[in-house]
């Protein structure tokens, strides 16, 4: 998505489609305004002079958090599947998938 001066209605429609949200015309209008405000707020950061600050990937100055390759207990299948909306052959049954795997 491009980053225009101001968030457009099309941008919001695009993001909504990606999130599988069905918005009415009125909602689109309302969220475009609200989201634009959020972005305006975030823009405050760009007013700071950060020329001497290196980009950081993470808020914490920590790297290489690792665990040993050791097997840990798994969940009980019956317990997990009992929470699923639908189950068949010990698998999660999901509605018809529209579109191919990504």
């Amino acid at each position, binding site marked *: 998505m491009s980053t225009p001066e101001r968030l457009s209605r099309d941008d919001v429609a695009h993001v909504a489609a990606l999130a599988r949200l069905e918005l009415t015309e009125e909602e689109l209008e309302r969220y475009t305004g609200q989201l634009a405000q959020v972005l305006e707020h975030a823009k405050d950061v760009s007013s700071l002079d950060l020329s001497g600050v290196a980009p950081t*990937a993470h808020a914490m100055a920590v*790297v290489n958090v*690792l*665990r040993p390759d050791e097997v*840990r207990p798994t969940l009980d299948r019956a317990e997990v*599947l009992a929470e699923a909306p639908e189950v068949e052959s*010990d698998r999660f049954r999901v*509605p018809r*998938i529209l579109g191919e795997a990504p």
Partner: protein
Amino acid sequence: MKDGWVMVIGLEVHCELKTATKLFCGCPNLFGDEPNTNICPVCLGLPGSLPVLNERAVEMAMAIGTALNCEIRPSTFHRKNYFYPDQAKDYQISQYDEPLNANGYLVLPDGFRVGIERAHMEEDTGKTSHAGTSGRIHGADYSLVDYNRSGVPLVEIVSGPDMRTGEQARAYVTELRAILVATGASDGKMEEGSMRVDANVSVRRSEDEPFGTRCEIKNLNSVRSLGRAIEYEAERQIALIESGESVVQQTRHWDEDAGRTSALRSKEEAYDYRYFLEPDLVPLVPDAEWIDRVASSLDPMPAARRAALVDLFATDGGVSDAQQDLVTTVVDLSLDPLVIAAASAGVAPSLALARTANEAAKSAEAAGRLDPASFVALLALEESGALTATQAKTVLAELLEAGGGDPAAIAKARGFEAMSTDSLAAAVSEAIDAHPDEWSRFCQGDEKDEKKLTGFFTGLVMKATKGQADGKAVAAELQRRRG
């Protein structure tokens, strides 16, 4: 390939790592278990669960990067967002703009170099099966999901658009598979899906033209289907262009039975994955000491091991083409230690190579477990003439089936005592006396006749001794008698 056209191929290979556990949780990484038994809050994406990176998976990924001559670099993890039930959390954790390994290369056995753009870490997805008549997603009424594979560590290896023929693509996958197996990171089983290949194919009229529009082919389950699919796809694109149409950038599915590719989706409807940094994982920054430690723990790669076998023949004027194929087979099956052990014990390299590639290779798994000492002992018996070639093969088969043993004892138990010189001579005499005409022809015969008659007499002696005689010894005896 049609005259006047050049094909351009780049390959993406997903390789499952042979860790004990998944990439971000301690669930077992096992193929073929009962569905949904290896699952936990992390790989089910339950709220509040947090991923923690598997150290062994990182080292295997670094080993792969090292073996592919990559730079190993500071890297980060991203979320790749999409709606598809094969990931319970609706995103896949992958590496995006900062992959662990980049800018490497792989050298094919013929010396051709294929660039490796990157080899990054990511998690595998769950397995969906589609209920309905077709078994495919179209027309399915619903789908079933097994999350055992969800979160299994993968390395995705992306080649440059460097290959130009289906043959090169096959050679690349074959060599890459051998390298992955040699690093110990993968079992390289395409048929079980632990190694999966996607091919990007485009065509153009000459190397000077810019790249044509490419299509990505999925569902390539063997090296053979890879070659077929690439060639089919190139022909399809050429036909389109020659008829005045243009290639649409799209993902296509290879149908092995029909021998054709069909469109899955075009790039206009391509996914927008909205990658963003995974906030639950910190950067992975291997230091020089760690990189060196992984590199120094690597076993020799297939190319070096093939060279070591070829070196055994240096004093005999090198290997023949046929022997070169045997060398490739032996290294592909990781049976080269048998040949090396036998040759260092003084067995002729040609015999060691032949027995390994032709006989031991038939039960490659058992041969991999065989104590090289008993293999060497067997070949020594054959070389000394105590066992004939046929007998040696029988004993080897039994050694492999039993998982080892003393070749001399097996030979004895089977009654494979070497024939005494006297009984061999007696059997030869008997054959000659029974066929005086053939014998006199043998004695005067030209070269071709002699060869045929040697076979004739050897056959008679073999029959009389129930295969116990050594064919070479019979031939020598016949020559001796002719004078």
